[in-house]
């Protein structure tokens, strides 16, 4: 075989090895959108429902500045920030998180005002 140099280099015509033509479909397709934005976010893992924040306050306990004693939390809901689900015209919202301090657990709840629009 003799190689031909120059502009014909890309068009080597070897019998049986011809470059096929481009397919005949249209090249005017729209760019695909970002599908991720159309989808719902993934479901919340169900085990996060077991937060200590939903424990009802012990209605028979005396006013105790040290706070009620709660059961031990599940490891999975530690260090997750929760927000209270109050009805919409609300002026106060509460945020809660359970975290571990050394070998004990502390659940902190903070009440914050909601700024009026």
């Amino acid at each position, binding site marked *: 075989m003799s190689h031909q140099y120059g502009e014909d280099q890309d068009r080597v015509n070897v019998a049986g090895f011809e470059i096929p033509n481009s397919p005949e479909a249209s090249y005017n397709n729209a760019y695909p959108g970002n599908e991720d934005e159309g989808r719902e976010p993934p479901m919340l893992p169900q085990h996060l429902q077991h937060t200590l924040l939903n424990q009802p306050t012990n209605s028979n306990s005396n006013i105790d500045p040290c706070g009620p004693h709660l059961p031990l939390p599940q490891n999975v809901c530690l260090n997750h920030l929760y927000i209270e689900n109050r009805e919409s015209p609300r002026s106060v919202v509460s945020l809660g998180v359970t975290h571990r301090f050394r070998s004990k657990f*502390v*659940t902190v709840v903070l009440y914050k005002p909601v700024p009026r629009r």
Partner: protein
Amino acid sequence: MIFEFSIILLILHLQYKFVVDVNTILLTRESDFLPAMLNPQVPPSVPGSSMDVDNEVFQRVVRVTDGTSPESFPIISEADLEISRHRTAVFLSTHMAYELLPESGKVIALDVDLPVKQAFHILHEQGISTAPLWDFSKAKFVGVLSVLDFILIMRELGTHGSNLTEEELETHTISAWKEAKLYLSTQVNGLGSAVPRQLVQAGPDDSLKEVALKILQNGVATVPILHSLSSDASNPRLLHLASLSGILKCICRFFKHSPSSLPILQYPLCAVPVGTWVPKIGEPNRQPLAMLRPSASLGAALNLLLQAQVSSIPIVDDNDSLLDVYSRSDITTLAKDKIYAHVNLEEITIHQALQYRDDPFSTYGYNNQKCHMCLRSDPIHKILERLSQPGVRRLVIVEAGSKRVEGIISVGDIFRFLLGI
């Protein structure tokens, strides 16, 4: 025979001062203990008088003081007192605040820009009497909101209430209130510049003794336990609200299994000069114990709580028999149904306020305020165990049977006594 003696004892009890005869204190069963007194001339150091409990009356006579009177002397022996104080001090110095934290505890904090009205509701809903205040702009805890603040606010509303519009009540924030409070206190004290009080706080590795001293010396009820990983104390984490009851609980738990190491535990309450007692005839230089009738106005009760700087007032009938106790923390029950906006402090009687507190049908009904009573003959270990229950900060000392109020003993009294302050 015994009954006759008892009646004589009672009469003499009211008329004579008592002298203690330490050597003949017989620590028998609780029920045998009679705070008897005969023969006030018995000198304190008479040794070895044989006391046969069944046939004779105890020659022991008890003198009760509030511990601050210059004439007081400890009835419990000096040796036992010193041992008890020393061992308590050692325990408190060697145990840390971390021990106060429950295995899984909850603490509630408030944003300092919350309206006071909302804060009132939250304290009531959550059943708490104190909450630390968080300032987002400074990223730190700046103070504590307690029932004392509400009493002051109620009093201000009572005197100037008509001047504040509904709108102003709705939006009056905690930080605005704290500034106003600072201003008011400088007016009263005549101080030049208002230096805001720093938050009294402690860390988990501070000793229990440091925490107790902070509470007593600053006149606060609770101290937040904060922890920060960085050395400049930024990003503090709120761990717990420490109170004297919690520390007392640690003490009781520790000494429960070796009660003999704290001799004071076995003595009856009247043998220890602690607490505030109703002054007897012939003791004019003692502070009277603040008490009120149920017909007194709520305004009078709040004023008394503030002026006498006490945390509760026994409510008694005309015979000075105990009916109930009105505490500072009961002020949060006024948050029910927003009655505080329409309340006129002078028109509500204590009786009505107590009924409102105990209403079993209220939304957050917790009927928890049994008045906690004790007898002067109760042993100290029992008193301490009761005082270390959460929410019990004081016991009213009553006479058996008639429930006449004889005095009050609080957790603060115990600690001041044990720490020798």
